[in-house]
């Protein structure tokens, strides 16, 4: 039985860009996560904001829910919409650069372009954007903005991410189909060159929104001059010297001007036997080689003064550099779906929470070491805070392990949020965990906003525990 909107959507985008086949919709039933498949009823790849708007108006008219989709690289569950009925709007066909202004250092890009394509194109012009750490090749600009991910390849510091700090304006299709522009472009006579909008910061409403208030179709982003010189490095610390490693990272990150574009420490996961090292890894960039060398010299000095217990680079720490900074083709991916547990803490609370979460995970995963392993833990320095991060793998053919991984991922996040952390990468099931930690007044405000903007509740429903 064809989807009831197949003909109408075909009229909007043409038959080439819409499908309701069983296999087609199933291919859109998940993201990079181990959570169960949630199958939409029809998938469409619009080519313009106007087409998106027409589809949204149609959905309103027929009261059919919409699930927007970018690169679908989140790892915490795919939005459910209305199973078997929703319209999945895949924005990846919209991938043009609409405006590039080297004077204002801004680029306006369609939201379906991947962060890495944008970075590649801007590099050719001598600029860079803040792209996300991994998997940067597939994540779209719209997904980064709405899913709140981003940033670890920033210019002067790890910035988690370009969405919060470097998004100047957005074009959004609201749930009623209206098209708005945020940022300075709120004034149709003005350029999209600044977040300043002569009024409330509407841009912020959509960042990290998971698309519940509308579909972002264009974004104007800040650019930075490309620093063509760079170096990577690492030092290792004995497993028992976690405090030393963290002190070293904090001291390097505290330096002004900032020294590193990426600064992180990686250690063994809670289910891997103790005895492995912590690796402090970094990437340094500069406009001249001399600048890079001076930064490297400063890092060496800080390490010597603050953490003389470091062992210098080791084979293992250099492997971490290759895996997590230079992104080698053969970097570690394993036998199954990967998942992450991530939460941002202020610097002065991150270490104790890393230790607490490590112990929590160790207890939770006892007996599951080989079926649902977490293969490392890490701290990323971000804006005078640290992102606690655990990476794991689960074999999807092992149903019990899959269930366990979901339980642990949600449980760990719940525990971290209870300790004062913030979620930094959003996806459906993790949003639900996060919503449990919202102040009641904030949840009420979200409900009011959602009901007001989306009275038919068609736009990505059931996120953040909203109806």
């Amino acid at each position, binding site marked *: 039985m064809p989807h009831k909107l197949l003909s109408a959507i075909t009229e909007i985008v043409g038959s080439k860009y819409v499908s309701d086949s*069983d*296999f087609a919709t199933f291919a859109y039933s998940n993201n990079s996560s181990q959570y169960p498949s949630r199958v939409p009823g029809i998938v469409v790849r619009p080519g313009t904001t106007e087409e998106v708007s027409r589809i949204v108006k149609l959905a309103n008219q027929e009261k059919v829910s919409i699930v927007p989709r970018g690169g679908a690289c989140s790892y915490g569950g795919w939005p459910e919409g209305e199973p078997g009925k929703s319209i999945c709007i895949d924005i990846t066909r919209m991938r043009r650069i609409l405006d590039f202004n080297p004077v204002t250092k801004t680029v306006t890009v369609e939201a379906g372009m*991947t962060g890495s*394509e944008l970075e590649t194109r801007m590099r050719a012009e001598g600029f860079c954007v803040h792209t996300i750490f991994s998997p940067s090749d597939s994540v779209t600009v719209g997904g980064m903005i709405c899913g709140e991910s981003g940033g670890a390849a920033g210019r002067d510091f790890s910035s988690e991410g370009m969405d919060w700090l470097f998004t100047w304006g957005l074009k959004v299709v609201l749930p009623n189909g209206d098209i708005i522009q945020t940022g300075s472009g709120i004034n149709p006579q003005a350029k999209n060159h600044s977040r300043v909008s002569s009024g409330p910061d509407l841009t912020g409403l959509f960042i990290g929104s998971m698309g519940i208030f509308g579909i972002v179709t264009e974004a104007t982003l800040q650019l930075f001059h490309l620093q063509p010189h*760079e170096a990577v490095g690492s030092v290792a610390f004995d497993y028992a010297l976690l405090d030393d490693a963290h002190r070293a990272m904090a001291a390097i990150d505290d330096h002004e001007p900032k020294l590193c574009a990426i600064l992180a420490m990686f250690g063994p996961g809670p289910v891997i036997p103790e005895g492995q090292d912590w690796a402090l890894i970094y990437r340094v960039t500069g406009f001249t080689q001399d600048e890079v060398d001076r930064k490297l010299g400063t890092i060496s000095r800080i390490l010597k003064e603050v953490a003389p217990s470091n062992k210098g680079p080791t084979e293992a720490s250099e492997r971490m550099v290759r895996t997590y900074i230079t992104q080698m083709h053969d970097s570690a991916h*394993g036998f199954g779906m990967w998942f992450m547990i991530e939460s941002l803490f202020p610097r002065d609370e991150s270490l104790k929470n890393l230790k607490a979460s490590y112990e929590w995970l160790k207890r939770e995963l006892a007996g599951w070491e080989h079926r649902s392993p977490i293969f490392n833990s890490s701290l990323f320095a971000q804006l005078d805070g640290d992102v606690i991060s655990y990476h794991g793998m689960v074999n999807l053919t092992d149903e019990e392990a899959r269930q366990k991984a979901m339980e642990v991922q949600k449980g760990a996040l719940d525990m971290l949020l209870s300790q004062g952390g913030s979620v930094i990468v959003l996806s459906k099931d993790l949003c639900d965990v996060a919503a449990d930690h919202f102040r009641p007044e904030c949840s009420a405000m979200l409900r009011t906003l959602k009901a007001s903007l989306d009275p038919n509740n068609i736009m990505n429903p059931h996120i953040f525990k909203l109806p």
Partner: protein
Amino acid sequence: MTNESKLEQIKNMAYSCVQCGYCREKYSDEVFTTLIAYRVCPIREHTGGFEYHCARGKIKIAQGILEGRFGYDEELINLLYTDPDCKLCSWICHAEPMLDPVTIWRAMRQDIVSAGLGPPEPLRQIDNRVSEKHNVFGAIQERRTRWASDLDLPRRGDTVYFAGCHASYPKPEIARSTVAILKKAGIDVAYLGEDEWCCGVVQFHDGSIDIAEEMARHNVESIRESGARRMVTACAECYKSFKLEYPALLGELPFEVLHTSEVLAELIKSGKLELTQGIGESKITYHDPCQLGRYCQVYDPPREVLRSIPGVELIEMLRHRGNAWCCGNGADMVRSMDRDLASGIAGDRIVEANESGAEAIVTACPRCAESLERVAEGIKVYDLSVVAARSMSIEI
């Protein structure tokens, strides 16, 4: 013997995809050092571009099949067969070799054939031609040897040249050039004549494994009977069949398998062969055939041969070696299923070659040469053996 479907046999592989999406777009191999812009899937770029047009979507579909969520209907079957198996997604995949996307849909095609649901008609016709006439064109087998009628090639010898269907029928200049070069290098080259059958490459890919096996057994037996120690071919697809498919099916072969490019590079290196004159064009680029490059990792020998040609500058296209763009043919899969789609993919390659500033594209596969020639504008297309022969002043 198991009753499991081919897909069930590789179930773990089908579930090892992390859905990272690198098989759709990958812009940098080493994100912060070498930025190489490319999109990964030629099918995704020339169709509606849905998830199911690229590897991670098709792998998800394989999971759906395994979970019994849907079966193979005509639309899905056509989707699975409209794929060049160019292996760029496999090459790009971080989980490779644990996960080889092409292996997954080759298994699905075998299941489709086993269930009597495929291959689709255009490929079924090729299968029938190969089964009945032993060549992809359905031509009479006697015509296969016409290119060699005046060459007096022995049936037995240390080195057997395996021409393949394309060099035997529409591209005889490749066969004649190859043989002439080998002879000039002092190699007593033998030829199977009418005992040379199609290598079965299309059937290996379209899932008609019984036909492929018949071809494989016959060809291996014929070469064994010739007494050859080694087999040389100028066709990337024949090479891949002998190098990878036959041993996987029949075990270790009793002879060495070489591509012409490997033989020529070695002869040049050892001084037994010299390329002495230019070929007319000074700037040339090399198109890596998928089946020679990504499948068999033969990247350097053809380049070494081209660099040996006096007055020739070898220019690389943006995408080359492991990330080379497909010619669009893909073991006849795409060409048979959707001619326009195949031409569009080939057109990308021509644009890329033109953008490189090259005056000619050289490749090492007759099928690639044909695909590129069909759409070539502003640039010439040559086969490696033909170019090498010309550089040696050999009249074909």
